[in-house]
Structure formats: structure tokens, C-alpha cells
């Protein structure tokens, strides 16, 4: 009852016309910065922070949080249409989203991503509202060994990202892991693989690498085909542009999977939405009845990661609001904002400023509805972009890629890196290496290495630290089971074969 009373208080705050207006402004802005690669929610919020000083504080956080979760909605659009992730958290969406678009189902992919975002976003807010304090306490039990186990679990998913050849998938994965080591080593402050380049001290920019491999690589690949004027087939009529009932049914599990994984991983300060989206994609594929179809354009492969990165937004606010601990860049800016507005973010924030917390929670329910209403009608509109012939579309993709990658760090160096990765992406396609495995290595490599070294420093080099702790032992056990699944399948196939021969 207490929560209900508080929520009513929250809605009375969130539905005040001024808050409703700014919530709308926030989510629209968020969608816009999410759509384009480059300028992300963190930079946008930082730029707008001074303006919020003149606002009521609750209104201010409602606006800025709107940008934060709105960007997660927008991120999928270019992933699906152009194979160009708008945010790093929508990289996993490219895998099946872009293939769906190529199969003429761009509308369904965009639609399902809006719906999955809405469902998971709402579940994320529900979780934030109901279980924040106990979840924050649970998340504190995650130390380096647990993170290591979680990353191993993520890498085990590579088994499911593998195409025809496991060897090629592993090779791509190791190149990704290697790329993740470039830059200044956190522990020794020494530089690794920088070739004397000061610009590589910060490591390989993730957006430059993914846009290069996915978007630029795809364009280069298409240049080979002589049919310059060929366009992707796009069905006419609004009905064909939205997901069907069957699609929604197929995604039942993906909604749950994305919501839960996104929310829980989001609440961990050291993981983030990109990790969450890959984990839920991997899980979706692992439990699927037709895992072999993933990567060719299955709708669950879009719903799961898109759900995860939206539920993550709710999860990421858990440590921020209950403990005053930011998990990533964007929440760090929100923390800075709270201090600037005169709050003391920490364990007592919700207790002392219930109107802030409950107003924000209620506004996020409203914001998610606004985003769904805003995004669904845009689906047919965005899908029209695919009607452009290749000789218009491809320069357009390259143009957006260059501008987007440049604007992340205002660095021309990153643009050259993107070009280099574009070439790599082309070669990988040509030689049939799974690009997703490389990206997975790049995403997880950093945290994996860090967590491993941190754990071993804590245990004085004793590997038992990974199995003596219940959470890490459990996660590692699941990873082992995942790794054994394909082997089981081979054995079963071999036995069936043997039985057939005997019979």
C-alpha cells in the first residue's frame, strides 16, 4: 500500500502539465540522439545540464532521464535499416535486425524493437520501483570474480554466434579480445599495442570499430554486386509494415529474457547495456528451437537485445538512486546533476526526497508510453529509407558513418580507424568470418581481462577464488553447460546416424 500511495504521489508529480511537457521533450531528444551514431545521451545530458538549473529539480531529472532511456529506443533504428548501430548498446540488434530488413521485414523489426523496448522499459521501471534496495544490496555481492564469470558466460555465447565454422568464430573472437587490450593498461599504466600513437592510448573506439565492421563493411560488400540500382524489397501497406500477431507470439520469451537480463545486468555498476544486450541475445539463441536461423533475420533476435538495453536503463538507476553510485557515463552525469541541484545523492536520497524518486519513476512509465506512441507511427516512415536505390543509399550510409564516428570524440583519427575496420569487415564477409564474434570479444574483452586480473590480485594468484564463491561458481557452471550443448548435439546426430546405419 505504501508503494501505491507513493506511486500516486509520483503520478501527481509526473502528470503535472509542465513535467509531462518536459518528459516529452526529453524522450524526443533521446530518440533523436539515439538514432544517429556519435552524439550519445551522456554528451547530450552534459550539454543540457546548465539549462536545467532554472527548472524545478524533479522536472530537471525527469527531462534528463527521458533523454537517457529515450536514446535506447532510438538506437535500434539505424541498426536495423543500415546495419549501423546508433549506440553501442544496439550492436547486437544489427545481427538479426539488418537481416530482417534485407528480407523485406524492416517494418516488423522496427515495430518489434519499439514494442520490446516498451515492455522491457516498463518492467525496468517496475523493478526500480519495487525491488531497488534489495537489488542494490545483491549487486554489491558482485566482485571481480563474479564479473569474470559473467564475462565467461558471455564468451560462451560465441558458440552460438558461430556460423559454419567454429574455428573461424574463435579466430574472430580472439582478434576481438586482442583489440580490447590496445591502449593504456589500467593496472601497470603501461601502453600496449599503441605503436607509439598517442591517439591509441585510449584504446580502440568501440563505435568506430562497430560502424566500420558492420555498416562500412556491408557497403563495400554490396559494391561488388553489379546491380547498382537494386533496392531491398519493401512491402506496401501499413499492415505489412508492423509485426504480426505471430511475431509477437514468437517473441514471448524474448520479452521476458530481455527485461530480466537487462534489468539485472543494468544494476551492476561494472557491466552496462552493451553486455546486457549480448547476453540476452545469446540466451535467446541458446534456448531457441531453431538456433541455426539466428543471424538470418529472426524476430526474437531483435526483441531480446532491444528489450535488454531498455530494461538496463531502469536497472542503471538502481545503484544511482539507492546508493549514489553511478554505473556508467550517463548516470555519472545524472549524479553530477543531482549534486548541482543541491541534493545529496546517496543511501538516504529516496527517504529524504520521495517526490524526486517517485516523480521520476512515474514519469518513466509515462515516458515509455510516450516513446511507444511516438515510435510506432515512425516505423513506416523510417522504413521508406530502404526505397532509396543503392547508388543513393550507400553514399548516404558512408556519410552518416563518417559524421557520426567523427562526432563521438571530434577526432579524424577515429574516422580513419572506421575506414580500416570497414576494410576488415569486408574481408571478414568475403572469407566468411562471423563479425559478431569479433565484436563480442571487443565488448567483453576489457571487463574480462580486468576482472580476471583483479580477482587474481585479490587471491594472490589462487584460481580457486572463481569456484569458492557461489555466484561465480554458478555462472561458470552455466557457461560450461552452454559450451557442451553443441557437443551434445553432435553426439546425438552421430548416434542417430549410427542407428540409421544399423537399421
Amino acid at each position, binding site marked *: 500500500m505504501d508503494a501505491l500511495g507513493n506511486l500516486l504521489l509520483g503520478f501527481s508529480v509526473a502528470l503535472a502539465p509542465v513535467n509531462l511537457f518536459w518528459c516529452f521533450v526529453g524522450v524526443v531528444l533521446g530518440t533523436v540522439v539515439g538514432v544517429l551514431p556519435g552524439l550519445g545521451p551522456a554528451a547530450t545530458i552534459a550539454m543540457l545540464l546548465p539549462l536545467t538549473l532554472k527548472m524545478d529539480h524533479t522536472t530537471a531529472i525527469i527531462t534528463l532521464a527521458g533523454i537517457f532511456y529515450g536514446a535506447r529506443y532510438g538506437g535500434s533504428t539505424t541498426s536495423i535499416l543500415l546495419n549501423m548501430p546508433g549506440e553501442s548498446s544496439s550492436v547486437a540488434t544489427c545481427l538479426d535486425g539488418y537481416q530482417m530488413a534485407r528480407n523485406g521485414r524492416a517494418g516488423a523489426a522496427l515495430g518489434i524493437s519499439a514494442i520490446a523496448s516498451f515492455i522491457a522499459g516498463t518492467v525496468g521501471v517496475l523493478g526500480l520501483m519495487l525491488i531497488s534496495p534489495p537489488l542494490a544490496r545483491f*549487486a554489491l555481492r558482485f566482485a571481480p570474480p563474479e564479473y569474470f564469470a559473467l564475462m565467461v558466460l558471455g564468451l560462451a555465447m560465441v558458440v552460438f554466434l558461430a556460423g559454419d565454422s567454429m574455428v573461424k568464430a574463435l579466430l574472430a573472437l580472439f582478434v576481438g579480445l586482442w583489440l580490447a587490450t590496445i591502449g593504456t593498461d589500467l593496472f601497470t599504466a603501461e601502453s600496449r599495442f599503441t605503436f607509439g600513437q598517442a591517439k591509441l592510448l585510449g584504446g580502440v573506439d568501440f563505435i568506430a570499430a562497430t560502424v566500420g565492421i558492420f555498416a562500412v563493411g556491408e557497403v563495400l560488400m554490396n559494391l561488388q554486386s553489379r546491380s547498382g540500382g537494386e533496392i531491398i524489397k519493401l512491402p506496401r501497406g501499413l499492415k505489412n509494415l508492423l509485426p504480426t500477431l505471430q511475431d509477437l507470439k514468437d517473441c514471448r520469451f524474448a520479452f521476458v529474457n530481455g527485461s530480466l537480463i537487462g534489468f539485472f545486468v543494468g544494476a551492476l555498476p561494472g557491466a552496462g547495456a552493451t553486455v546486457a544486450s549480448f547476453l540476452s541475445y545469446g540466451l535467446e539463441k541458446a534456448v531457441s528451437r531453431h538456433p541455426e536461423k539466428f543471424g538470418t533475420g529472426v524476430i526474437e533476435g531483435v526483441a531480446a537485445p532491444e528489450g535488454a538495453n531498455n530494461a538496463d536503463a531502469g536497472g542503471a538507476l538502481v545503484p544511482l538512486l539507492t546508493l549514489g553510485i553511478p554505473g556508467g557515463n550517463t548516470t555519472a552525469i545524472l549524479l553530477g546533476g543531482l549534486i548541482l541541484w543541491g541534493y*545529496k545523492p546517496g543511501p538516504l536520497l529516496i527517504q529524504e526526497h520521495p517526490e524526486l524518486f517517485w516523480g521520476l519513476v512515474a514519469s518513466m512509465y509515462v515516458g515509455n508510453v510516450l516513446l511507444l506512441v511516438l515510435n510506432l507511427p515512425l516505423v513506416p516512415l523510417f522504413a521508406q529509407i530502404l526505397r532509396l536505390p543503392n547508388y543513393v543509399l550507400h553514399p548516404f550510409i558512408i556519410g552518416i558513418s563518417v559524421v557520426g564516428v567523427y562526432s563521438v*570524440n571530434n577526432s579524424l583519427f577515429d574516422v580513419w580507424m572506421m575506414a580500416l575496420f570497414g576494410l576488415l569487415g569486408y574481408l571478414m564477409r568475403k572469407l566468411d568470418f562471423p563479425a559478431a564474434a569479433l565484436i563480442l570479444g571487443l565488448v567483453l574483452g576489457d571487463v574480462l581481462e580486468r576482472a580476471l586480473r583483479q580477482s587474481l590480485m585479490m587471491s594472490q594468484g589462487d584460481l580457486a577464488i572463481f569456484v569458492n564463491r557461489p555466484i561465480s561458481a554458478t555462472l561458470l557452471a552455466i557457461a560450461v553447460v552452454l559450451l557442451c550443448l553443441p557437443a551434445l548435439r553432435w553426439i546425438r546426430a552421430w548416434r542417430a546416424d549410427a542407428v540409421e546405419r544399423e537399421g
Partner: protein
Amino acid sequence: MRPISYLFPVALVGIAMLLPHPAASQEFKPSKQIETVVHTGPGGGSDLFARAIAEMLQKEKLISQRMQVVNKSGGGPAVAMAYLAEKKGDTHTVGFYTGVWVTNPLTTVEATVTLKDLTPITRLVLEPAVIAVKADSPYKTVKDFIEAAKKNPKQLNQSGGTILSRDNLMRMLLQKATGAQWNFISFPSGGERLSNLLGGHVQMMVIEPQEAGEQIRAGNLRVIATLTEKRLASLPNVPTIKEQGIDVPLIPQARGMLLPPAAPKEVVAYWEGVFDAFVKTPTWKQYVDQNQFEDAYLKGAALNKFLDALKDQMREVLKEAGAKVIR
């Protein structure tokens, strides 16, 4: 966003014309947006500091142009410093530095630009640090912790940033002074350092009082010593490390502003004038109090002396800490 950025300068120029000019403004006055370089991403310490200063300078109408914060992160401060070095002589670019701008070039081959190559203008604050443990831990004083570390060498853990960070350098100095030994676990973000302390996975952390403040108030953390010369106003009952009989050099964590190399004299004078006026405002005083910084305004020769001394001290400390000093 855009329309505002057009309105701002127009409004502020109008207001600024009505106000008395800062000392040297006859010779130089920014005529366009000022590019403000920081070495952390959005939300990092330096980023938030620069944005707060920019905001306050505008609020106090001390500058007539917008300061646009540009994040040049990577390799600690190396990318930002290299970028500023390329802007040699540019009159509309400034940067915000911290102590790591002094230490990083000492140990990193690629970091060829040093603080001396740039044009430091001011030191604004010193950030105090405290030693915090979990509230339910058995350590009530630094002595308790040191004794425990001596009894179980290399069994206790401290969370912190890189090995070049103040956290680790303080650990090295403390270990040297007391003979105790414990591990230092690097985490990239402050959030992870703190959550590992709160989760009981590490036993100790060197933390800024502002960051620990709410955790102390909520009863999650206990401060067992301040790493300051005098006790902190916000923690009057916590003795300094020296009061507890451990004599270690204290490493100041400075934040301030600088210009690219070869900054024209009149530009230097302009910014000195701006900050001379700024540090006298109540807005500044309130900001310093709120963040529990030490107000430590310095400029000119005194600033250069401080930075030189800091570099020499850091070189010694780094050598003791076992880092490869190359400059």
C-alpha cells in the same frame, strides 16, 4: 539546444557591457565560443568540474562567451594534452588539468607533451582525501588497519584507480612508513571502487570526503583518518594521519585551468583577471564548501613554483612506488 547557444552570447554580451570590465580586458576579450578541453568523458571528475566552473563564470557574468566543454579522453590526460599542444597560440581554447597531467608524462613514452609545454593559468582547488573502511569493519583507526595488514601480509585489499593515482601512491608511502603490506586493486570507475568497498570485497579505500559523505551519514562507511594537514570541517572527530603518529608526505590533488602553448600575454592576463574576480564571489565559496574542496587559488610565479615542486615530489614518489620514470 542550438537556439540557446545563440541567445546566450547575445544576452551575456549585452549584460557584460553594463558591468565593470575585468582588469586586462581592454587588450583581449574572447570574440567567439571558448573551446574547453577536459581529459575525461562526460561525467568524469574533470568534466563535471569544468562544466561547473563554466556555468558559474557565466552566472557571475565574468565571461562574455560560452565555454563549450570538449571531451578528449584517452591515455589518462595524454590525448587532451596532445590536442592542446596542437592548438599552440590559439586564443579561444582552454583546458582543465589535474595532478595526473603532471604524473602521466613522467611515466608514459607516448605522452610527449608536459604541463610545462602548456601555459598553466591557475590552480583553483586542492581535493582532500580520507581513508575509509566499511562501517562494520574492525578497524577503528589507521593503526588497527596497519596492524591487521602486518599480521596478514598481502591479504587485505584496497580499491582505487591506476597505480599512478594518488590512492596507490598514498598506499606506497604508507607501506614504506609502516612496513605493512596490502594489495591495491585497480578499478576504472569510482562507482566500482566504492561498491567493492561497500560489498566487503576490499577493506579500505582512499576517497574524497564529498564522495564518501552520504555513505558516512547513512552509516555504511567509517573514516579512520584524513590525509590532510588539518582536520576537515565536515569530519571534526576524525584525526589526521599525522595525529595518529604516521608521518607520510601528503600528495596534493590539484585542479586548475591552463592555456595552449605560447599563449599571448594579454590572453593570460584576461584569464587571470577573470579568476581573480571569480574566487571572491559567494558562488565560488559555496561551490568549494559543497564539494568539500580546499580553496587553493594560485597563479603566476607561485603556481609555477607549486607545479615544479609537485613534479619533483611525484618523480620521487613514483620511483619509490616502482614505476618506470622516463622524464
